[in-house]
């Protein structure tokens, strides 16, 4: 995924959706987003930010607070968070930074922006219960390794419990990839 991203552009008033932050306040994980006072603890402690020129959790939080809905949801850097939860644990204001990023990713996914790896894993889970396509050979090898048979997934039952969730409808439609 390309890592070049403009975050320092001038913000146009027309880009701002003033209702966005109120939507976020209602979603589990981002309820405390308005408490962020931009101290930067999240970014300075972020392991990904050390090696990425573009990923800055503080910037993402500020964009969300300002209501830059499209810019933040279309941002490729949103998908770089490693979910190590260091930011969440160290935020002096109690903002669950990693969870805010998860909420934003979920909203992007609802728009159909879903990196390929998540589609692969979702399909694999629907088919086998497992997030990876475990080769039959590997499953058979377990006996010679002295391991018990691998429990199987119940695809039919899984599909029933997950049907109607927007994300699964989106991957069925084969929507665009981030």
């Amino acid at each position, binding site marked *: *995924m390309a890592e070049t991203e403009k975050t320092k552009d001038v913000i146009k008033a027309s880009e701002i959706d003033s209702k966005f932050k109120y939507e976020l306040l209602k979603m*589990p*994980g981002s309820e405390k987003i308005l408490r962020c006072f931009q101290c930067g603890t999240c970014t300075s402690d972020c*392991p*990904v930010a*050390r*090696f*990425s020129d573009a*990923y800055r959790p503080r910037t993402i939080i500020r964009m969300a607070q300002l209501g830059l809905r499209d810019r933040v949801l279309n941002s490729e850097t949103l*998908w*770089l*968070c*490693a*979910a*190590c*939860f*260091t930011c*969440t*644990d160290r935020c002096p204001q109690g903002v*669950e930074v*990693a969870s805010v990023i998860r*909420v934003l*990713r*979920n909203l992007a*996914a609802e728009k159909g922006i*879903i*990196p390929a*790896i*998540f589609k692969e*894993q*979702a399909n694999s*889970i629907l088919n086998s*219960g*497992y*997030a*990876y396509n*475990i080769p039959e050979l*590997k*499953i058979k090898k*377990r006996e010679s*390794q*002295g*391991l*018990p*048979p*691998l*429990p*199987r*997934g*119940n695809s039919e*039952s*899984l599909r*029933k*419990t*997950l*049907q109607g*969730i*927007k*994300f*699964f409808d989106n991957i069925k439609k084969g929507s665009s990839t981030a």
Partner: protein
Amino acid sequence: MSSKYLIFLGCAIPYRVSAYEISARKVLAKLGIELVEMPEFNCCGLPLDPVSHEAMLILAARNLAIAEQQGLNILTLCPGCAGTLKKVNALLKKDKALKDQINSRLKEADLEFKGTVEVKHILQVLMEDVGVEKIKKAVVKPLTMLKVAEHVGCHLLRPKEYIGFDNPEDPHVLKTLIEAIGATSLDYIGETECCGAPSVGVSDKVALELAREKLNHVKKASAQALVTICPFCHIMFDTNELRIERMFNETYGIPVLHYPQLLGLAMGIPAEELAFNELRVDASKILKAVNEDAK
């Protein structure tokens, strides 16, 4: 005290990290922990949390509901699974509206979440159920000749609000368990830093840079091996070590062991039974050091 658990393997271990499962089953059996297999399996939900929080909740709750039907607590080897199942267990127990919403989904599969089981990672079972004293007593070959670096990984430590097991800023459980079998657990820079695994597939560059940074710190500390308790961390350091060496022109040769492999050696279980041959980075110098010392 409970000594019977439903074992939740997760996806990564049967897919790529069988040495962890083989060695964990060996040591747990010897320490009197009985494992029962899941009657049916689905992913804990964590991989889908970034794209659908709701799907994650349902997948995790399904597993908890299945464990409840069996009347058994869950033991996981993967901290990602442990963290997810613990978190969802806590969330659904405290939020009735959310519980009802998820249960209306589970009803489609004739399942119901009630909130009657607990979830523990193997490290927690070793620490809390077996206990350090019993582990010390089980040691027949103290590994005093070994100086190793530990890597707990993120999901067994953070977010502390839901995990609440070890100190995320200064974890000591794995160190204590390493010292309990006679080895030295070295301090090094960035012990609690992420291995990079979750960034694989989104930015392999960032992922491998993170793993490289950790390997550099471990090398500087002159550790003879790196000890992990997570399948993903293990893949980053063991499976990818050669790739990182080539990519960044580094030399490590640092064996990466699953803690149960190390524990098994100290308990006198032969290396062949602990799947040392499945490791990508050659660990024969560790085995040689252990065997020579025993003479």
